């Protein structure tokens, strides 16, 4: 006999999902979802304040994330364009240079190689600077042969590996110097890394802020509804039934906050898009992902808002809803 009762009590919660209880359960959810929505609208000021704070926090962290992502992808492209220039010793034979090129072309760290012979270099220099006459006064072409190495995509932004590659190239026979502007890259990398981490930290702080704001709003709601909760308890409401309207309130606050955040992100994104495009153009970057609202962003904001709303309400319920037993 003990076996039966213990099995029953251990899996008693399953009874909540039996058809006999499922229909009333669904009905109660529908009823509560609607009534808590109505209640939110009955207190427009309180609702607007809470929703506004949630929306601003969500929009801020979204924009920051998007800017960081944009910076990252712009940097990726700039790294790609930062080739390594190898200046060969004067008088190195063309054969040696071609052999060198063949050897490195197969290296997984190298995407492309390009030989610029002294003659090509001279022509380029003349057309570029208009100072051809100075050089033509030399008996011999004073320019070294140059091999331009484009690092593989996967090295983009990885300063340490790039550095190793440059060292290896530098160590090759006939190579006089290998040039890559590390300082510039390092600095840019550091900035992007910083913005990246900043966006995560700020995102976490803002999420915490949302939880606190919602927790406080729900706490006030619990205090306002003390009498109601006691009556519900008295006529046979389970803990869950008492909690449900509060969780739904959190859900609606969060969902509304997410929806308003979508609008905010769209507006700010539109305002930023022109100046950002100018900046990117000046760096010859072709980054497409400007801050703004895409379909995934839209869905993410709603889901994020709603789940933060539910969690905030849940935390508050755990903390403040102990003492509702009628006396």
């Amino acid at each position, binding site marked *: 006999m003990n076996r039966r009762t213990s099995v029953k009590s251990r899996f*008693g919660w399953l009874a909540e999902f039996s058809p006999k209880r499922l229909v009333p359960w669904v*009905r109660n959810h529908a009823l509560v979802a609607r009534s808590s929505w109505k209640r939110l609208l009955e207190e427009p000021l309180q609702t607007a304040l809470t929703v506004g704070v949630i929306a601003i926090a969500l929009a801020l962290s979204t924009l920051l994330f998007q800017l960081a992502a944009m910076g990252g992808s712009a940097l990726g492209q700039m790294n790609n364009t930062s080739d390594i220039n190898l200046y060969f010793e004067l008088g190195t034979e063309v054969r040696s240079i071609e052999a060198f090129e063949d050897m490195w072309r197969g290296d997984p760290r190298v995407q492309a190689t390009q030989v610029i012979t002294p003659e090509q270099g001279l022509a380029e220099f003349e057309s570029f600077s208009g100072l051809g006459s100075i050089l033509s006064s030399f008996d011999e072409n004073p320019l070294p042969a140059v091999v331009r190495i484009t690092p593989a995509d996967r090295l983009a932004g990885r300063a340490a590996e790039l550095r190793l590659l440059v060292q290896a190239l530098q160590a090759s026979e006939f190579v006089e110097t290998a040039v890559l502007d590390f300082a510039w890259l390092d600095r840019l990398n550091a900035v992007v890394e910083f913005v990246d981490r900043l966006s995560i930290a700020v995102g976490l702080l803002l999420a915490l802020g949302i939880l606190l704001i919602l927790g406080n709003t729900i706490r006030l709601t619990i205090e306002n509804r003390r*009498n109601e909760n*006691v009556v519900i308890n*008295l*006529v*046979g409401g389970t803990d869950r*039934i008492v909690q449900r309207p509060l969780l739904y309130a959190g859900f609606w606050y969060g969902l509304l906050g997410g929806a308003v955040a979508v609008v905010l992100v769209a507006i700010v994104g539109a305002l930023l898009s022109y100046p950002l495009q100018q900046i990117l153009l000046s760096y010859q970057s072709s980054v497409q992902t400007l801050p703004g609202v895409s379909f995934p962003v839209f869905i993410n904001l709603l889901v994020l808002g709603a789940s933060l709303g539910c969690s905030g309400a849940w935390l508050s319920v755990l903390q403040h809803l102990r003492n509702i*037993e009628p*006396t």
Partner: protein
Amino acid sequence: MIRFDNVSKSYPGGHEALRRVSFELPRGEMTFLTGHSGAGKSTLLKLIMAMERSSRGQIFYDGKNLDRLGRRGIPYHRRRIGVVFQNHSLLFDRSVFENVALPLNIAGAAPRETARRVRAALDKVGLLDKETLNPVVLSGGEQQRVGIARAVVHKPDLLLADEPTGNLDPELSAEIMNLFREFNSVGVSIMVATHDISLVRDFGLRQIVLNQGRITQGAFPNESLR
């Protein structure tokens, strides 16, 4: 339907509100619970509702020991009982209809069934024409009747009332009592706690008398057996 077996209740602080109380309440009966203020009437009703736990002794509801009722079981136990408690009155942020519908909404009744039963209950207490009003605009007697409608709307087996005529004049009190009698006549067991002895005398119903937490009269329905 209800059996108290040597039940004592001490509140934190040591005050003993009920002392070795034993009685039996037969199904379908209407019983008065009387005694001076502080005699332990409300405490006794709260024990039946599992709002308080007995310190000693056992309480049986339909043969089931209330002590064995887990935290999860309590709400379902309460759904079988209707209560009219003075200090847990109506909610003034919603209509009369919504107040009365509360126990049905909690039980998840179908909307149509809810409306039908709420109107039947309001009809019983003579307030069908007030369903859309906020209870705030009703008189004390009308509010009490809304409370009674809420207590019976889900067809409980047992109706508990704590000083239901507390601040009503004698005429309204008699009206409320007649309502209870009507419910009783259709088979609802009823227990009314009151310190108003005149009410009890007028109705000539069975009564249990409490004095300082002890039963002094009427513990068992067939007293000649004891």
